[in-house]
């Protein structure tokens, strides 16, 4: 590019400048989405129907650990999503390690449960949990995608993954409050498999989805 063309290019960009409001802090940005998403999933759980043994479940360590882990994963994935909407992540790249660690611990926990309690893998068929899980995750996912559109990510595939983990985590916790099937096999096939399918599609479309 000649110096003249470079000058023209710069002048063109400068002429095109409009005042812009800097994005709010990622924590501020995610908080309203998070509150709304929790309220949405809570409302869906209420309409679908809370499982009858929920009070007993609150004294079941396995149930509590599983949900606490999933809450940790979804909260850290939501935070990571929010920071990923800024090119340099505001220097908080370490955040990405948290959901991955949570997922790792969750997988180990599930393996231990599968070993001790048995896998009880169900037949692969369309289950009502699949539909409800997708329904619980789709609105939080849309909201977080909307939030990402206001920013500019430099890591589209990782962003897609974090967005999905956030929404899927909410859906998963919601399903644990409605579904009485506590086996690892059912959770894997009916609760997690639909999100894997959505994740695959999002991963393939990530570059277009987060284009800016």
């Amino acid at each position, binding site marked *: *590019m*000649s*110096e003249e063309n*470079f000058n023209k*290019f*710069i*002048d063109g*960009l*400068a*002429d*095109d*400048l*409009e*005042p*812009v*409001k*800097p*994005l709010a*802090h990622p924590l501020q940005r995610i908080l309203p989405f998070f509150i709304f998403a929790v309220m949405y999933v809570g409302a869906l759980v209420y309409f679908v129907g809370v499982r009858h043994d929920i009070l007993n479940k609150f004294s079941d360590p396995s149930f509590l650990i599983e949900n606490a882990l999933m809450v940790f994963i979804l909260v850290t994935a939501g935070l990571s999503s929010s920071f990923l*909407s*800024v*090119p*340099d*992540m*505001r*220097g908080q790249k370490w955040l990405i390690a948290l959901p991955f660690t949570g997922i790792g611990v969750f997988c180990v926990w599930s393996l231990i449960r599968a070993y001790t309690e048995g896998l009880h893998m169900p037949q692969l068929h369309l289950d009502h949990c699949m539909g409800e899980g997708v329904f619980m995750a789709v609105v939080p996912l849309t909201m977080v995608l909307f939030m990402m559109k*206001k*920013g*500019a990510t*430099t*890591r589209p595939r990782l962003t897609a993954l974090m967005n999905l983990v956030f929404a899927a985590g909410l859906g998963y916790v919601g399903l644990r409050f409605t579904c009485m099937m506590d086996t690892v096999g059912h959770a894997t096939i009916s609760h997690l498999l639909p999100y894997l399918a959505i994740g695959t599609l999002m991963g393939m479309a990530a570059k277009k989805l987060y284009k*800016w």
Partner: protein
Amino acid sequence: MPSPSNTNIKPSQNDLWSEYAAKAQQGDKVAYNRLLREIGPFIRNFILKSLANPEWAEDIMQDVLMSVHKALNTYSPERPFRPWLMAIISFRRTDYLRKHYSSRENMQTTLDDFDFQRAHVTNPDHAGEYKDIEAALETLPENQRKVFEMIKIQGYSAKEVANEMGMSVSAVKVSAHRSMKKLKEILQ
């Protein structure tokens, strides 16, 4: 185009860019113009080091400047400007190279088309690995290097090389083998 002597920026320059960017967010066109003029050459010089073809640097620089323009709202004035800019540079460079190498036009060319080669084929002057190989070849004794070049680069058979060099076929093969071994040791 202005060209700074190197891509290292001083802390004060980073502060200045942060200040320009903050003013640009408020709509200050003069500050924005200065910012783009200063970061343009910085971007080009920074990415030039990692590209096989220097002409790509101009395209990537334009992409980065366009991205800075689009994503100006994502810059936080209380944070340093450089990490924000570097993240965009890295993203656009990777994006550009991925598109470039995946396009079909890079799969075919003719040796006569110099413009095409200049635009799409790795320039040996900018490719470190070529320089390394050339330097390694220089370390070989002259006869050994000639044998190696004739067999491995020019494609002659061992017999043809043996006739040309006045050596036995087995001596040619041994020489080529030793050269290859020595080059591997140097280049590893």
